[in-house]
């Protein structure tokens, strides 16, 4: 069976979980949307502005570095020219040329604040002191330098960060090395321009200085960096691949958000990593705030749900209480101020109780009437034994007085009364009832002698049926009291037939005609006897059954009695069953 919470669960629970579900879904959607969207937007924005910044930095850097490259080019040209003068000169000339070369190169250092010193690898006289701005190194020393590989196959190269000795101690420099060619296009010297890393870092320093910056050359080699180099070193290959694929871009790996930019006209690339956590901190905080709001909302909704369900359930509870404690004696008042569905429900219930009370009232009235009737019946009831004994004594008196007729009448009467007053079932077989009536007729026959004729015409079908006891006697008595009064000849027919699934009894006489207003003026015809019969039949079988009085074909009055077919089987359960079958 399918689970239907609306049928099985408490209303407040349904309310709360229904609301909570919606809010949770809504809050969840908002939070995730704001976080995902916010993060994406931040990443996009950051990427965009960082790229712009990096491109600007790149331009700035490029200007300075190109300056150095061009200066070194000029220096190399001058160097070559001066060097030519030295060839075949005296040692004095050589000394002069070298001092001119030094002087010239000195001026490059003095004129370019970025430049720390210049190293010259040549066959000029070696001169290396920490105090000088220009150092002369022997040519063969160059091949032992760690950076030589970078320069071997090209005319010039930026050398990655290395440490040189200076009068300030060890200093990290980034150097630009250029081969110097003579007019025969043979490289005979190398000049190395040393730029302190601090200068590079100052160049790539941004105002906020919050990020990890790295400077890479066109081969993706890490030239210098600010702060932490680990990430750049670990991901050198990856960064290089990204740089090759796109000149500018961004990528996120774990907590590192990498943005890079390299301009096409520059061999330098700048890469910046920012902590993703720090970038999205704002977005995360926003999401957290949303989440907090969501939780607060859920709590509010809990309160609201409880409040609402209380409010909605309260009238139901009131109604339930009213129904549970329903009693006629004490009326539980329902609130009158409900105008909505609950109002209708209350009104409906009030009407219902009103109707029930009315019903009870009528039942009570009926009951009282019935009781009054019973009391009346009891009042009228005569102790049968007293009656029998009295009749017995009268009988004896008649026998002693040799009044056989009276004696016979008395014995018929006694027989009739015995039948009528026996405490037996209220339903009796029709033949028994007929036999009973016959004793009464036999009693009348003695008075009427031959002037009275009576006949029973009971079909075999009807003989098996039951009728209420003493049903016929009032009609017979009525015929004698009213119909035959003053008549010379009296004839009576008692007929029983089964017609249209009913037992139909006809008691016809040849007495006086029935009066037209008999049904209205009951006391006029029949009095208690007939009324009693009518009420009995109606009480037992309903309105469909009963009797009518009319003029008989024989010239007098006939009573037509309609009864249900009551055979042995239907009679066995007693009267209740009989009643049930009709209601």
């Amino acid at each position: 069976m399918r689970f239907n919470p609306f049928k099985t669960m408490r209303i407040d629970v349904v309310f709360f979980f229904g609301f909570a579900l919606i809010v949770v879904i809504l809050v969840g959607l908002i939070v995730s949307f704001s976080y995902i969207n916010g993060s994406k937007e931040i990443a996009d924005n950051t990427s965009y502005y960082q790229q712009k910044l990096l491109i600007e930095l790149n331009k700035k850097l490029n200007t300075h570095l190109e300056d150095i490259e061009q200066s070194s080019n000029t220096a190399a040209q001058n160097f070559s020219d001066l060097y030519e003068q030295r060839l075949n000169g005296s040692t004095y000339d050589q000394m002069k040329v070298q001092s001119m070369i030094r002087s010239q190169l000195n001026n490059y250092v003095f004129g370019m604040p970025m430049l720390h010193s210049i190293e010259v690898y040549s066959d000029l006289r070696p001169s290396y002191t920490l105090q000088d701005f220009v150092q002369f190194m022997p040519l063969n020393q160059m091949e032992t330098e760690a950076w030589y590989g970078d320069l071997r196959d090209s005319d010039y190269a930026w050398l990655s960060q290395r440490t040189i000795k200076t009068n300030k101690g060890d200093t990290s420099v980034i150097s630009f090395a250029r081969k110097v060619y003579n007019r025969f296009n043979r490289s005979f010297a190398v000049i190395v321009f040393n730029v302190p890393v601090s200068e590079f870092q100052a160049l790539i320093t941004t105002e906020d200085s919050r990020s990890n910056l790295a400077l890479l050359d066109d081969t993706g080699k890490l030239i210098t960096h600010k702060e932490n180099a680990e990430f750049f070193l670990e991901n050198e290959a990856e960064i290089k691949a990204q740089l090759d694929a796109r000149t500018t871009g961004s990528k996120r790996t774990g907590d590192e958000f990498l943005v890079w930019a390299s301009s096409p006209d520059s061999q330098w690339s700048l890469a910046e990593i920012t902590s993703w956590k720090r970038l999205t901190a704002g977005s995360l905080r926003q999401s957290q705030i949303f989440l907090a709001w969501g939780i607060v909302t859920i709590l509010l909704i809990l309160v609201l749900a409880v409040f609402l369900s209380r409010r909605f359930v309260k009238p139901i509870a009131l109604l339930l209480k009213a129904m549970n404690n329903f009693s006629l004696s004490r009326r539980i008042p329902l609130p009158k101020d409900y105008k909505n569905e609950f109002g209708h429900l209350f009104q409906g219930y009030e009407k219902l109780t009103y109707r029930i009370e009315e019903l009870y009232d009528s039942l009570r009235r009926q009951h009282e009437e019935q009781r009054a009737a019973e009391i009346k019946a009891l009042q009228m009831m005569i102790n049968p034994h007293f009656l029998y004994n009295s009749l017995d004594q009268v009988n004896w008196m008649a026998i002693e007085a040799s009044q056989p007729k009276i004696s016979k009448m008395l014995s018929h009467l006694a027989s009739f009364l015995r039948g009528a007053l026996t405490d037996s079932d209220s339903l009796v077989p029709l033949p028994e009832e007929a036999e009973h009536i016959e004793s009464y007729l036999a009693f009348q026959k003695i008075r009427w002698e031959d002037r009275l004729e009576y006949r029973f015409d009971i079909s075999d079908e009807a003989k098996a049926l039951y009728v209420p006891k003493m049903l016929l006697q009032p009609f017979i008595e009525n015929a004698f009291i009213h119909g035959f009064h003053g008549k010379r000849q009296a004839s009576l027919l008692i007929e029983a037939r089964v017609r249209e699934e009913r037992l139909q009894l006809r008691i016809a006489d040849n007495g006086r005609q029935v009066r037209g207003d008999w049904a209205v003026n009951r006391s006029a015809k029949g009095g208690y006897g007939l009324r009693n019969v009518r009420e009995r039949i109606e009480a037992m079988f309903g309105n469909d059954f009963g009797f009518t009085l009319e003029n008989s074909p024989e010239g007098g009055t006939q009573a037509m009695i309609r009864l249900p077919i009551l055979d042995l089987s239907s009679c066995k359960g007693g009267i209740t069953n009989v009643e049930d079958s009709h209601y």
Partner: protein
Amino acid sequence: MRWFVKKSSFVIALIVLAVGISACGNGGNNSASPNNGGNASAPESSATDGNAGADAPVTLTIAWWGSQARHDATLKALDQYKALHPNVTFQTQFSGWDGYFDKLAVQYSAKKAPDIIQMDAAYINDYAGRGLLGDLKDLNVSDIDPKTVDSGKVNDVLYAIPTGVAALGMVYDKTVVEKLGLEAPDFGWTWDDFYAFGEAAKAKLGDDKYVYVDQSADLVDYTAYQYSMGKGYIYDADGNLSIDKDTWINYMTKMGELRDKGILTPADITTTDKELDPQQDSVINGNAIARHLFSNQVGSIDALKPGAFGFASMPYGSEAGGWLKPSMFWSVNAQSPHQAEAIKFIDWLINDQEAGKTLGLTRGTPVSNKVLEALTPTFSEADQISTDFLNKVTPDAQKFINDPQGWGNFKNDYKTIVEELQYKQSTPDKAYEKLMKLAEEYAAEAK
């Protein structure tokens, strides 16, 4: 309402004032800002600057030349000053003598010269004459001998303050002299002793070792010679070159002879010689035994080979050859926006006893009597030698005059001319003619 207007205008005025002051403070952050030209009003404006932001962060650029010992001592002194004045940071530029003034010239022309400059006597007149140096009148010089202070004045304005006094003398490798069993040069020795020592030493040293470093191309050497020969200073009172022809030619001829004999270092070794360089100083690397030296360099050379060196005066002729030189002037860049701070620092550097202790004698014997008094008990052996050196030269020390204006670079050109002699590209007579021609050019330019 009127009250409100008054009140609010007062508040606005205050705000404007505050903004103005903070703007000044910010301006002060930019060291050697190029738009701050070297004009007469610079000291005043910088003074207000200094008052407005007494503790405003300031970066001072400072440049000096010298040996590694001097670099180390100076850097240490800067750290001490920074500890005392957290608002001050320093940018340092230091090197050897070679190229120092070339660089300074380039920096001045780019208006990026340092705030505080170590100045040499040869250039004071040049730089002060061009209005590039600030007036140091705010400096406390009460503890300094007025004569010493005067050495930094040009037209009675103090443009440079010496940090010490040094005497010119000679250094020799005591261990070699003792090993060879020679009589060591001493204070008061004569030129004859000088030649004799050269001959004797050369005889024992062999072909590839030399006695004296050939410093004949250094104008200082000839100055000492002319003094010792009683011909006076190389500049006369009017600032004209006053080199005695015969004396000069005699000197150069004699030096040529010594060179030929292998008593002086040959030209190629001379060229690579770097005074006080651990590898390239010919006395330190063993190519030669002796050279001239200023007393304030005793500590530096002793640090390279502790206890190995002995010291002597410049050789005497008819008079003494040595003189006392107010060494290592400090000057303030007139273009600097931080002149007040710079003067404050220099004041500390020359008058503070702790600074004196840190610097020792790396710039010569301290000029402040108080500092010297406090320092004397703490002298190291090298300091003691240096002081003895100075004291022995002082009694008959020759007078020192700053190079006249426009002649600052003369010694460089002088060197080139003498180098021709060293390389035998010329003769003393021809070289003298060339020198005179050069002097005429200088004199013409200086007028």
